[in-house]
C-alpha cells in the first residue's frame, strides 16, 4: 500500500436535503490504491448517500452543501451533470445491494454490458461484445456468450451479483464501490461472491459498505464507522475491532453474536419429556410446484426448550412454521400436539397453545389499527377477559415487552421496527401460549435491536417457561441461543442435535459448508474465536 496521495479523498463532505436538513455532516474518507476500505454502520447512518455523492448520484432533492471529493487529482463536487456523466463507470463502478432489483428486468444482460462499454471506451459493438464476454468470464459466470442473450430473471441471485460486478468493472475503473454487495445472498453464495470481490479488488480500490461489523473487520483493510451521518471512528480493521475507541463502535461490537453480553438462552436444566408439538413425516407440496416445499420432516418441540430451525432461503423453514400454526393444512397424522391429548385440537385450542411472531414487523401489524386494538385482537377473539379489564391487560402486556402503555392508541406507523416487533410479541403473549414460533423474527432488525429483542425473548421465556421454536438462516444465532438445532436443506432435515454438538462437530457435509461459509471473512464468529484470522492482502 503506497502512502502517496490516496486515490479517493473525501474532505468534509456535507449533504443537505431541502426538507430533511443536513444529512451528512462533514464526512472525510481516504482510500488508497489497491486498498479495501469498509464503511460500517446501521441503516440510516448515511453510508450509501456518502458513496453516491462521490459521482453526484445523490437522490434527487439532495445537494452537496460543502466539502471536496477527489478521485486521483480530479475534484468532483464542482462538476455539473454533463461533466460527471462520462466519469461514471469509468472513474468508479458501483455494485448495489439487491442484484435482482439493480438489473433492468426487461433488458438483456448483453445490451447493458455492451452499451456501457461502447459508451465509455468508445469501442465498436463487436469489440464491446468481446469486452463484455471477458468481463463475464472474469466474474466466473458459466458460458458468458449465451449469458449475453439472457435476461436477469434467468439467473440466480449470486449470478446476478456477479453480473453486477462485471458491469461495474467493464470500463476498468480504478475505484469500485460495493454497497452491501452480499447482504441479500445466502451464506454460501455470500462467501463465494466475497472471494471474487477480493480477487478483483487487487487491481482496484474497493470501497465496501456493510452493516455487518464482523464481516467488515474480516474483509477490509481499514474501516470507517458511521453513525447519524457522521464518521465516528476509523482505523485499521484489526485495531478497531480489537480495541474500539468510540462508544458507538463498542456497542456495535458488543451486539455481535457470541460477544453479546446476553447470556445464552438455553434452558440449562434437563428438558421435560412432554412434547408440545410433534411433526412426523411432514410433507407439504404447493399447488403447481415441481417438488415438495417440505418433505418427510420429523422433529418435536418439548416444553421449556429452545429449538432452532436453520436453513437458507427456500429450505422450507417458513412452510413448517405455517403448517404448525395451522395456516397451511397438514395431514392430521403428520402433525400432533401430544400435550393437548391425542385427537387433533380445535383451531381455538391450538391457537392458545401456540403463537407466532413474523419476520417483517411492517406487514405483521394492521397499519389501520391502533396498537391497543392490535394487541387486544386475540383477547377479544377468545374473550380472554371482560371488556373493562381489556385495557389494563393490554397495558400490562405492552409494558412487559418494554413499551410505554400510554402510546397504545397510536398506530403502528408511529413505532420503529424493533418496537413493532415488541408489539407483535405482546400480541402473541396475550394468548399466553406454551409454544412460541419466531419466524426470522430478528433478521430484519439492526444488530443492536436484535440483541435487545433477543434479551427480551430470553427473559420472557424464563419467566413463562415458554418453549421457543426459532426459525433463522443465521447459524451463529442458532448456536448462540438454541438447546437443539435442526438444519434444513431443500425441505429435508440434514442434521439435528444439541446446539453445541452440531456447531462443534457437524456430521453432515452441508452443515459443515454452511458453518464454513458463515465463518469465512467474519471475525469473532463462534468457531473462529481464538483462531488465527485470515489477514487481508495475503
Amino acid at each position: 500500500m503506497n502512502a502517496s496521495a490516496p486515490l479517493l479523498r473525501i474532505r468534509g463532505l456535507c449533504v443537505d436535503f431541502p426538507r430533511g436538513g443536513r444529512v451528512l455532516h462533514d464526512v472525510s474518507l481516504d482510500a488508497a490504491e489497491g486498498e479495501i476500505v469498509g464503511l460500517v454502520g446501521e441503516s440510516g447512518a448515511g453510508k450509501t448517500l456518502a458513496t453516491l455523492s462521490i459521482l453526484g448520484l445523490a437522490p434527487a432533492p439532495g445537494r452537496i452543501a460543502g466539502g471536496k471529493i477527489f478521485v486521483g487529482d480530479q475534484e468532483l463536487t464542482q462538476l455539473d451533470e454533463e461533466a460527471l456523466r462520462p466519469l461514471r463507470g469509468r472513474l468508479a463502478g458501483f455494485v448495489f445491494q439487491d442484484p435482482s432489483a439493480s438489473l433492468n428486468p426487461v433488458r438483456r444482460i448483453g445490451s447493458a454490458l455492451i452499451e456501457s462499454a461502447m459508451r465509455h471506451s468508445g469501442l465498436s459493438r463487436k469489440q464491446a461484445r468481446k469486452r463484455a464476454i471477458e468481463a463475464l468470464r472474469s466474474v466466473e459466470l458459466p458460458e458468458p456468450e449465451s449469458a449475453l442473450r439472457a435476461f436477469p430473471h434467468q439467473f440466480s441471485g449470486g449470478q446476478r451479483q456477479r453480473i453486477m460486478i462485471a458491469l461495474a468493472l467493464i470500463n476498468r475503473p480504478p475505484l469500485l464501490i460495493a454497497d452491501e454487495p452480499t447482504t441479500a445472498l445466502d451464506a454460501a453464495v455470500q462467501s463465494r461472491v466475497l472471494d471474487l470481490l477480493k480477487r478483483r479488488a487487487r487491481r482496484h480500490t474497493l470501497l465496501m459498505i456493510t452493516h455487518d461489523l464482523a464481516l467488515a473487520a474480516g474483509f477490509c483493510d481499514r474501516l470507517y464507522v458511521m453513525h447519524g451521518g457522521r464518521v465516528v471512528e476509523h482505523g485499521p480493521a484489526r485495531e478497531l475491532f480489537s480495541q474500539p475507541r468510540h462508544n458507538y463502535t463498542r456497542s456495535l461490537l458488543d451486539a455481535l453474536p457470541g460477544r453479546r453480553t446476553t447470556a445464552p438462552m438455553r434452558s440449562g436444566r434437563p428438558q421435560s419429556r412432554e412434547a408440545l408439538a410433534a411433526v412426523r413425516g411432514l410433507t407439504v407440496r404447493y399447488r403447481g410446484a415441481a417438488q415438495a416445499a417440505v418433505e418427510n420432516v420429523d422433529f418435536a418441540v418439548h416444553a421449556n426448550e429452545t429449538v432452532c430451525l436453520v436453513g437458507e432461503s427456500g429450505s422450507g423453514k417458513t412452510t413448517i412454521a405455517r403448517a404448525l400454526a395451522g395456516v397451511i393444512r397438514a395431514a392430521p397424522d403428520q402433525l400432533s400436539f401430544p400435550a393437548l391429548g391425542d385427537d387433533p385440537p380445535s383451531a381455538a385450542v391450538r391457537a392458545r397453545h401456540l403463537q407466532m411472531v413474523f419476520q417483517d414487523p411492517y406487514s405483521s401489524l394492521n397499519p389501520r389499527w391502533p396498537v391497543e386494538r392490535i394487541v387486544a385482537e386475540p383477547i377479544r377473539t377468545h374473550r380472554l377477559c371482560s371488556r373493562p379489564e381489556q385495557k389494563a391487560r393490554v397495558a400490562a402486556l405492552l409494558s412487559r415487552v418494554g413499551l410505554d402503555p400510554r402510546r397504545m392508541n397510536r398506530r403502528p406507523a408511529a413505532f420503529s421496527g424493533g418496537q413493532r416487533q415488541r408489539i407483535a410479541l405482546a400480541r402473541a403473549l396475550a394468548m399466553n401460549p406454551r409454544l412460541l414460533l419466531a419466524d426470522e423474527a430478528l433478521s430484519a432488525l439492526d444488530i443492536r435491536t436484535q440483541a435487545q429483542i433477543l434479551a427480551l425473548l430470553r427473559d420472557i421465556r424464563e419467566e413463562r417457561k415458554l418453549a421457543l421454536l426459532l426459525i433463522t438462516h443465521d447459524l451463529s444465532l442458532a448456536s448462540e441461543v438454541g438447546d437443539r438445532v435442526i438444519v434444513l436443506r431443500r425441505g429435508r432435515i440434514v442434521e439435528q442435535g444439541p446446539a453445541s454438538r452440531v456447531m462443534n462437530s457437524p456430521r453432515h457435509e452441508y452443515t459443515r459448508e454452511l458453518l464454513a461459509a458463515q465463518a469465512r471473512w467474519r471475525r469473532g464468529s463462534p468457531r473462529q474465536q481464538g483462531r488465527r484470522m485470515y489477514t487481508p492482502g495475503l
Partner: protein
Amino acid sequence: MLAGLAQRAARLLILLLGVNALLFVALGLAGDPALMLAGEDPTPELLERIRAEYGLDLPAWQRYLVQLGRMAQLDFGVSIYSGQPALEMALEQLPGTLLMAVLSMGLTLVTAIPAGVWIGQRPEAASRRLGAALTAVAQGIPGFVMALVLIQLFVVRLGWLPSLGYSQPAAWILPSISLGFFLAPKLCRVVSAGVAEAMQEDYIRTARANGASMRFILWREALPAALPAAVALIGAQFAFLVSGVVLIETLFLWPGIGLLLLYSAQNLDFPVLQAICFVVAVLVFAVNGLADALLRLIDPRLRPATQ
C-alpha cells in the same frame, strides 16, 4: 401460451353464449316478428307461411337450440328488415371500423407515449405538473363531446374538413383525433406513472452509475419497463374503444359497425345484432390475444421459462 389461448377461447364462448341468450330473450320480449315481416293487414295464412319460413312456429327452447346450431355454422339468419344475410351485413361494415380503430390507435401512441415519458421523467417539476393536470382534464372530457366541438369548429364554422365517410384522407383527421380522446389521456397517464415509478428503481441508479444519458435512461431503460402496463391497458381498454367507435361513427357518418349497430338496435333487427355482437366479440378477442403476445415479447418474465 396455448393454454392461455384456449382459456381466451373459452371466455369468448361464454361471452357469445351470454350475449346470444340475452338477445334471444330480447327477441321474445319484442314479440312476433312475423307481423313485422307481413306488412299491412296480413292474412292469417300469410302469417303462417312467414312463421314457418322463419321457424317461428316452434316452441321457444327449440327455436333457441336451432339458432345455436345455425350459429355454430356461422349462419346468423337474415335481417328482419332487409332480408340480407346478417353476418354479411356486419362484415361489410368491418373495414371502416378497423380503419378508424387503427388510425386513432396510431395517433394515440405517437402522442401519448412521448408525452407520458416527458411527464414521467420528473413528475414533480412544475411544467410536468401542468402537463399532468392537462391530461387529467383531457381524460375528463368525453370523446363524443370533443367530437361535437371539433365538428362545430372545423366542419361547420371553418368548413376546412369533410365530415362524410372516409374516402378522402382529410376525413380521417377529426374522427381519429376524437377517438384518440377516449384512450390517449389514459395511456399518457399510465406511461408517465410507469416511467416515474421506473425512475425510482435501483436499475435506473445502476444505469446512471454507468454514465447513461438521461435520454438513454428514459427511452431505453424506463420506457421498456413502463410498456407492459401500457400494452395491458390498451388490451383492456380496447372494448371501451369500440364503444367510442360507435359514437364517433354516428357523429362522423363513418360507415362502420357502429352505424349498423345503432340502426339495427333502433329497428330491433335481432339477427343483425347477433352478427354484430359476434364480429365485435371476435375482434376484441383477437386484439386481446395480440396484446398478450406483445406483453410476452416486451416482458421476458411472462414467457415460459427457457432455463
